[in-house]
């Protein structure tokens, strides 16, 4: 997310200022250089935030409190008063779990791949995916009606490939595909020869939170709050939430 040189500079600052010392530094480096995207982004945020706070206050990183290691213990002087101190947890939140549950990106990618492999690379398709609202107020969520990720290739080969074949046989004729099997899937594909050159589509936003507590932001906050409580620290406690690709954060305004 941030410039790589900037992250490196902040890492060096944290090392020289004694905030990030071995073996925690090595662990941070492993996460930053790893291929596990969520961990790498979380590590990047930690470095950037730690450095920003450490330039303004004394920071101790992962100081043990009981069995817990809150990310930050911050202490800074206040004119005309005793120094202020707080512990904080940094939590990066992403919709990755929701994406896994609603594999719409994978579905369209596989659709394009199969169409291309069958020799149709001209587009002209409009893919609409149905959805439903599950749960009872106030704990509702939107769920796309798609096959599970592991079933997507098989579903496309069995049910959608014959439609693509038919489109290829009659490329000048508009055609429709409407799924009429299980109600767990709702899918319609339109082929329009006047729209050749690209594909289009639409689906409901499944990551916008509809539930007060059953959402990724609340769950992460709840976990961190529980850690802070278990730390036994009696002073000020706070949570710093950062964006690793989370729709709920944009709508928390």
């Amino acid at each position, binding site marked *: *997310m*941030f*410039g*790589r*040189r*900037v*992250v*490196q*500079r*902040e*890492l060096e600052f944290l090392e020289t200022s004694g905030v990030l010392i071995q073996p925690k530094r090595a662990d941070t*480096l492993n996460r*930053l*250089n790893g*291929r*596990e*995207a*969520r961990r*790498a*982004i979380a590590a*990047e945020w930690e470095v*950037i*935030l730690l450095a*920003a*706070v450490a*330039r*303004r*206050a004394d920071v101790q990183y992962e100081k043990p409190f009981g069995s817990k290691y809150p990310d930050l213990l*911050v202490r*800074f002087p*206040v004119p005309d*008063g005793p120094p*202020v101190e*707080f512990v904080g947890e940094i939590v990066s939140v*992403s919709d*990755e779990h929701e994406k896994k549950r609603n594999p719409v990106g994978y579905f369209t990618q596989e659709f394009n791949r199969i169409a291309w492999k069958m020799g149709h690379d001209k587009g002209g398709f409009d893919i609409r995916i149905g959805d439903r609202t599950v749960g009872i107020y106030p704990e509702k969520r939107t769920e796309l009606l798609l096959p599970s990720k592991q079933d997507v290739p098989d579903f496309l080969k069995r049910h959608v490939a014959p439609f693509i074949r038919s489109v290829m046989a009659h490329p000048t004729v508009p055609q429709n595909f409407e799924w009429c099997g299980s109600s767990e899937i709702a899918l319609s594909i339109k082929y329009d020869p006047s729209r050749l050159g690209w594909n289009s589509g639409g689906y409901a936003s499944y990551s916008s939170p509809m539930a*007060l*507590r059953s959402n990724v932001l*609340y769950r992460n*906050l*709840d976990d961190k*709050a529980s850690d*802070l*409580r278990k730390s036994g620290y009696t002073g*000020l*406690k*706070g*949570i*710093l*939430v*950062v*964006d*690793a*690709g*989370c729709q709920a*954060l*944009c709508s*928390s*305004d």
Partner: protein
Amino acid sequence: MEEFLKRHPYIHFVTTTHYEYRTWAKPHHTLCHNVFWQRPFDESVIQPFYPVLNDSLRSLPSVKTSPQNAQIDIRSGEQFARGCRHTWHEWSPTTKLAYSSRTFLRLVAGIVSHEEFRTLFVDNLPNRGPFFDFFRHVAESKAKLLSIEVIQRPDDDDDSVVFKLRGDSVTPCKGSTLFCDIPTATLLRYFVCLAYEAIMDQRRFSIGTLPISTQAFVRQQMREGRLLVGAMLVEQGQTVRLHFGSRDAAISPFW
């Protein structure tokens, strides 16, 4: 958030920082911050505390990409390529060209594929873009290169290499023990050749006409994670000297 704070009274505050891409006026990536305090508000806590929190969050460096794209880049191993400003330029035709230093280095190293070379074309500008227009002008006017320098951009993952045909001479560059020399005429001939090939619409380009030893040296530096830190004309302008710095996180893993 209110629900969370209500259910967790022992948490005194929550800050959120989220990414936004703003498209109005000048499109840019930005971060938006919010602070949520536990109720009832305790001024004695907020007052000393808020300035530090506010200053820290406001001082965060600028973001270069969305978290979603950053994740895609990491998964696909493209996180190093993302920082290259590819066709970035500042250009005063017939006088000065500032160009992406990493693109310049890839051209010198001869590691630009034919397809990548085509992506350097800016078709709505004369002669397929500033790079080609500048060197075509050099060839046609028989202009002499007055200076070459590297302007470092520590907040970006790419620098600028600046060629000047007129104007003030530049201050001497930061030297390093790692450098290579290329005869100015050879380098210019190479770029002029690319400029003519760019406007001729041919399928293949002569990327790779610089001396093999020069290309090998530049490739070796890039493999070791080094980028240009300086460039200068030496021997009365007969030779271009390219200086390489120490390991650079822009193109190498963090350390």
